[in-house]
């Protein structure tokens, strides 16, 4: 029975494809830098969001301080 030999061109093509896929996979494993960078950026984005959301408490704190000052002055004046 004659086995039909595979032509060299498709073999080389297959080998090349395999090598590039393996290289890409190895590259992904070896350098998760983009993900790490994105993870660092996420921490900063979350911190920024935290600070922005906390701005309302800074505003309210200021209003309370002003109201307490007015109350203290009124109490001092009444004495």
């Amino acid at each position, binding site marked *: 029975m004659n086995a039909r030999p595979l032509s060299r061109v498709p073999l080389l093509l297959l080998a090349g494809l395999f090598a590039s896929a393996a290289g890409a996979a190895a590259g992904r494993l070896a350098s998760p830098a*983009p*993900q790490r960078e*994105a993870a660092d*950026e*996420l921490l*900063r*984005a*979350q*911190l*920024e*969001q*935290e*600070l*922005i*959301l*906390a*701005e*309302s*408490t*800074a*505003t*309210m*704190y*200021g*209003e*309370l*301080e002003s*109201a*307490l000052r007015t*109350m203290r002055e009124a109490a001092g004046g009444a004495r």
Partner: protein
Amino acid sequence: MSSRRSPFLTPAKASLVMVALGTIALMGVPGVGAYLPPAGTLAGIVLDRRGEAVEDIPVALFDAASLSLLEVAHTDAHGRFAFQQASSRFHLFAHPAPASGRVGAWRLSLSREEGREVEISLPSAHPVHVAVTDEMGMPIEGAEVRAYDARATGEESTVVVRVLTDEEGEALLPAPPAAHIGVVGHDGHHLSGWRFDQEIPPGGADFAFSLPRGTLFHGRVVGPGDQPLSGILVSAWDERAEGWQWNGYQLTDPDGRFDLFGAEESTVLRAVDLTQSYLPLALAAENGPRMSVELARGAPLRIHCTDGEEGDLPSRVWVWSPEGQAWSWGTRTDDKGTLQASVSSRHAVVARPLRGDAAAPVAAWDRFYDAPDLELSPAAGGGD
């Protein structure tokens, strides 16, 4: 006939009267007798970290929608307070004196139903000394120093102390054990300075801030076709020896314009669409003529967060755009855990469950857009 009338006040009667008067008097003494807590539409108690009642401190009631101060009550000898006014959703702040050894605390976004018995727990105050100088080493007087309570991770950070530096550029403030300490540049010349996520020991901590001069960056945010985008959140960061520093944010006006203070060099601007229609973008700020920041539209992606067992998981969701090198605003899903986002062809999605008892954040890193729906669960997303 003679009758002997007994005297009006016998020793026995006098004793009875004394006992009755004593009982009445004791009823008003804290911890003795029938105590009637202050009554009102909203009520609660202020405790210190050991669970002991904190008396005679102001507690403020704010309307959650307008942020306006509605009423100030004071705690009684049992640490209890009550408000006569009510708001469908409200914030509370208990504000002890700086020298009390305790620092203020917030309860945010409570509903009227939750307001029947609110408990506010005050952290211990740890002393923080701050010295603020300019780039020449000269003290900056009147700089606003803030302590943020950073106990809870995520969105619950709150401003609990605000003081101004004296003529020596110094300030002494009480701070919670886990804090962000910030000096907010408001004078139009100097940048802000931050020390994030600080653990303040009981003995206290010292922080020295050297605030460089800043410059104003003018810009305009546009969409495709040079259409101005209003309401875009633009923020400024710059990198210094102490790490990344935040210089505040602004929402663009109807013409898409913004003016932000930042460092002459190394300022990075982040432009984020809060409605998630446009992709976020980070870029190096340029000084000189007005910058034009162009945001691209993304592809619609409906994200559904689940716990992996068919249960919806309401979460806060961030989407990464590799082209813009920026994350979106962390938007809350609805009660069913769904959110409509806008993503680039390649992207990452991170969801942080809103329920305190829920699992750790779920992430799907390095995804390609292949369908308008994404089921994000610990199993599907592959975890953090």
